[in-house]
C-alpha cells in the first residue's frame, strides 16, 4: 500500500477511535441520565464516521473498486442515533427520572411528561 494512503487511513482511524473513546468516557463521567444521553449520541457519530471512511478508503484502495457499503452504515447511524436518544429521554421523563439538582427549568420536565405546553415556573 502507498505510504500516503496508509497515513490517511491511520489518521482517520485515530480520529474515529478518539471520539468513540471520548463518548464512552462521557458515559462514565457525566453526572445524570439526561446529560449522559449527549455523549453516546454525538461523540459516536463522528467517531463511527471516521472509522467508516477509513474502511472505505482502504477497501477502495485494496480491491480496486469503489466500496460504498460504509455510506449506508453512516446513513443508518444518522437516522437511528437521534431516535434512540429521543426514546431514551422520553422514557426517562415518564419514569420521573431525576435530573441533576442544578439543571435549569426543571418545571418543564413535568409539562414535557404530560405533553402539555410549558407552564410558567411556580417559583424561580
Amino acid at each position, binding site marked *: 500500500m502507498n505510504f500516503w494512503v496508509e497515513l490517511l487511513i491511520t489518521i482517520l482511524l485515530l480520529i474515529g477511535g478518539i471520539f468513540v473513546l471520548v463518548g464512552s468516557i462521557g458515559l462514565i463521567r457525566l453526572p445524570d441520565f439526561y446529560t449522559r444521553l449527549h455523549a453516546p449520541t454525538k461523540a459516536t457519530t463522528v467517531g463511527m464516521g471516521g472509522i467508516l471512511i477509513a474502511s472505505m478508503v482502504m477497501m477502495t484502495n485494496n480491491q480496486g473498486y469503489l466500496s460504498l*457499503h460504509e455510506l*449506508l452504515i453512516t446513513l443508518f447511524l444518522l437516522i437511528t442515533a437521534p431516535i434512540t*436518544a429521543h426514546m431514551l429521554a422520553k422514557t426517562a421523563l415518564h419514569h420521573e427520572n431525576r435530573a441533576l439538582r442544578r439543571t435549569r427549568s426543571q418545571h418543564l420536565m413535568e409539562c414535557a411528561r404530560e405533553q402539555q405546553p410549558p407552564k410558567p415556573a411556580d417559583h424561580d
Partner: protein
Amino acid sequence: MKRFRWLPMPVHSLLLFVVWLLLNNSAAPGHLVLGAFLALTIPLLCAPLQIPQPVVRRPLLAVRYVLRVLGDIVVANVEVALLVMGSMRKLQPAFVAVPLELTSELPLTILASTVSLTPGTVSAELSEDRRWLYVHALHLTDEQALIETIKSRYEAPLKEIFAC
C-alpha cells in the same frame, strides 16, 4: 376506490434500488434484477400503510440543509468532546421549551433529529398539540440564543423546503 398504481412510491422505489445495490456493493446484472424486483414489490405492499406527508419542494435547499447539518454534527462532536473532558462542576444542564411553527410529521421528525445531532442538545419530548419541542441542553449559556438558533438555522429552512 382509488385506481391501482404500479409505482405508488416512486422515490422510495428508487431509494430501495440504490440501497440494495449499495448493500451488495455491486452492480452485477443479477443484483440489478433482484433490486428492481424488490424496489417494485416492497412499495406495493407498504403503500396502504402510508400517511400522506408534505413533499420536498426545494430539493436544492434540502441538499444545502443536509450539508449544513453534517458540518454542524462535526462541530457538535468536538464541542461535546471538550465538555465531556472538562470539569463536570462547570456544566450547566437545562431543559428548554422551543416554540414550533412546523406541524406535519416528517418535517418535525427531521427537526427533532437534527436538534439531537447538533450542538449540545437532545430533543426529549413533543407537546401533544405539536407547538412545543422540549429540549435538554448539556451546557446552556443563553436560553434565548439557543431557541433563536434552532428556529432560524434549522426550522426556517425546513419550512422553506417543505413549503408549509
